[in-house]
């Protein structure tokens, strides 16, 4: 089976600072990969680089999604090609209702793929169902995007967007942090319900707990911009017990000087 995502020796920087330093990762359709690693390792940066955020520049390496050169596409083209990023810190867009925002996003994506537009009525029905699934009151569709949402509500809202956009590759950046125990289950169930032979996940998390519910196929440790260890679900237990120190690579000399 061919890969959905292939990252080869990726080097990337932000503000002229090297953050991603030789990242390799292969994700096959239907797989769930968990990425763990210390604060500042570059996990969020990886998500931004893959989505093509302004200001994040790729120095070398390659990334393909479904065989296409991802790095050659604009941010919105990557999204339309099926890449979704659930943000660690979702931003507010005051005055733009969730429903309006999501409809516009779905319309843009469908149009780009040459699919027929959904009617407002159909969409509303789907959106209500998605709300229910992530345990948000339907009234959240009318509220401004993330406007005044609590931390946990924002995370569930990210998941709701994922449910409606039906991406091929979902990158969830700490969607489990700041959630209460019930919400954690909601997120896990949301992910599990979307697992299919065509859809893959990269789940960035600091906690074993989420992985108990989600059961990843692989667990990777990202440290200092690259993957330093990979294993199966049991690696997460090891990390929970021992922390990251035993994995950390020695810093290079020139970095200490700089």
């Amino acid at each position, binding site marked *: 089976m061919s890969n959905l995502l292939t990252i080869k020796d990726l080097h990337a920087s932000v503000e002229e600072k090297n953050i991603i330093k030789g990242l390799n990762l292969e994700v096959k359709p239907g797989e769930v990969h968990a990425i763990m690693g210390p604060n500042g390792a570059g996990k969020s940066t990886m998500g931004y680089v893959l*989505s093509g*955020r*302004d*200001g994040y520049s790729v120095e070398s390496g390659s990334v393909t999604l479904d065989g296409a050169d991802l790095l050659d596409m*604009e*941010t*919105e083209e*990557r*999204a*339309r090609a099926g890449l*979704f*990023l659930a*943000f660690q810190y*979702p*931003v*507010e*867009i*005051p*005055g*733009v209702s969730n429903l*309006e*925002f*999501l409809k*516009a*996003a*779905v319309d*843009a*994506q469908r149009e*780009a793929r040459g699919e027929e537009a959904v009617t407002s009525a159909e969409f509303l029905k789907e959106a209500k169902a998605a709300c229910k699934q992530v345990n948000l009151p339907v009234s959240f569709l009318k509220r*401004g*995007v993330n406007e005044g949402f609590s931390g946990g509500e924002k995370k569930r809202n990210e998941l709701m*967007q994922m449910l409606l*956009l039906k991406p091929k590759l979902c990158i969830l950046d700490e969607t489990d942090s700041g959630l209460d125990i019930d919400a954690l289950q909601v997120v896990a169930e949301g992910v599990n319900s979307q697992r299919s032979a065509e859809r893959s996940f990269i789940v960035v998390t600091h906690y074993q707990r989420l992985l108990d519910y989600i059961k990843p196929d692989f667990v990777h440790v990202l440290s200092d911009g690259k993957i330093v260890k990979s294993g199966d679900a049991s690696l997460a237990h090891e990390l929970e017990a021992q922390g990251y120190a035993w994995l950390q690579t020695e810093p290079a000399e020139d970095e200490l000087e700089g």
Partner: protein
Amino acid sequence: MTEQIDKALAREYEAGFVSDVESETFTPGLDEDVIRRISEMKGEPEWMLEWRLSAFRDWLKMDEPDWALVDYPKIDFQAISYYSAPKSMKDKPKSLDEVDPELLRTYEKLGIPLIEQQMLAGVAVDAVFDSVSVVTTFREKLEEAGVIFCPISEAIHKHPDLVKKYLGSVVPKKDNYYAALNCAVFTDGSFVYIPKGTRCPMELSTYFRINEQNTGQFERTLIIADEGSHVSYLEGCTAPQRDENQLHAAVVELVALDDAEIKYSTVQNWYPGDEEGKGGIYNFVTKRGVCHTNAKISWTQVETGSAVTWKYPSCVLKGDNSIGEFYSVALTRGRQQADTGTKMIHLGKNTKSTIISKGISAGKSNNSYRGLVRMNPGAEGARNFTQCDSLLIGDQCGAHTFPYVESRNPSAIVEHEATTSKVSDEQMFLCQQRGLDPEKAVSMIVNGFCKEVFKELPMEFAVEAGKLLEISLEGSVG
């Protein structure tokens, strides 16, 4: 991102075409003779001419104001033509069939079909082309309800008592430099009278179009809502794209008698000039309404055009318990300059006013809010709430807020809130990550910012305003 935004904003002005209509236009210049000729062209009664001439003599003694935060070369008032009318209007057409098809086509191109069957149901339109009103639709239907909706030039003949009583009663002739000029040379505009206890059965609207070169447009609008009546009125404006600046100096007067309500909405899209600031309309407008007891006036404006805007729709809250509202969206881009806001003058007891102003600046533009809230000694228990929000797109534009408060009654309460925000990289990234192109993203963020104002517009026009904003912002990102 700034670069993307600038690119998106560098967009063509869609209403910028010139109509090929044969016109009769005065040679540029202004003196008492010109005023006599305007009055003569309109076949005006003597009292009207005298009124004009006295305003003109006042104007000669006045100085052009320079306190606004706008910068433009001195206007040569002798280089402007003060009257231009399509030739076909000479023998005034009696029905739509007699109107020059080229004129009808002009309005159709602007999205304002004047053929009644094709029009937005429930909206009556007065179309003003350069100096004259070319057609007013749905007049019979309005007459049935007793509503008068006609060109002001016609009202001077047919309803002289109302005109004499109210013209200049809200904005005195000497009010300010541009208002005085308007009194002297105004050529046409709309007149509305809603009888006692009547709810106007449809939206009324006027579309102003400046076509002729070097011609100023000085329209005059007078709306009288008699006791307990209700009316919603919308004004729209466009002009061709020309390299020379054109002057627009209008006066709008609203009279809301006891228990009456007037809702006045403006969607202003005059030609803003090109990216370098060449051409565009100078928009110097005086709009004011007076509210009698329990009356209410709401001004809602969406301002996207003009090279220079100088405009402060105001309410004089004369009667007890009267209410004044001002909802404004002003978008500037390129080299546009806007100095706009409102004045709320509280005279009566328990009067209330609300001001919501949303300024959006992009490109190298400058956008200022200037507002005055005055609580007079008699304004027992009066209240004002003001909210001014500025949104910056890019980092070469400016937003300024000048709130003036004069409270002479200790029981009056004035509240003011102001915010400045930017279209952030994070917001743009979120939108694009969800599949929206950058243009759609900016227009959605800006529309969200304006939501509180758009919801005040009549439904049909809220959609139009949203679209206008989208068009104005197109190319603001790339």
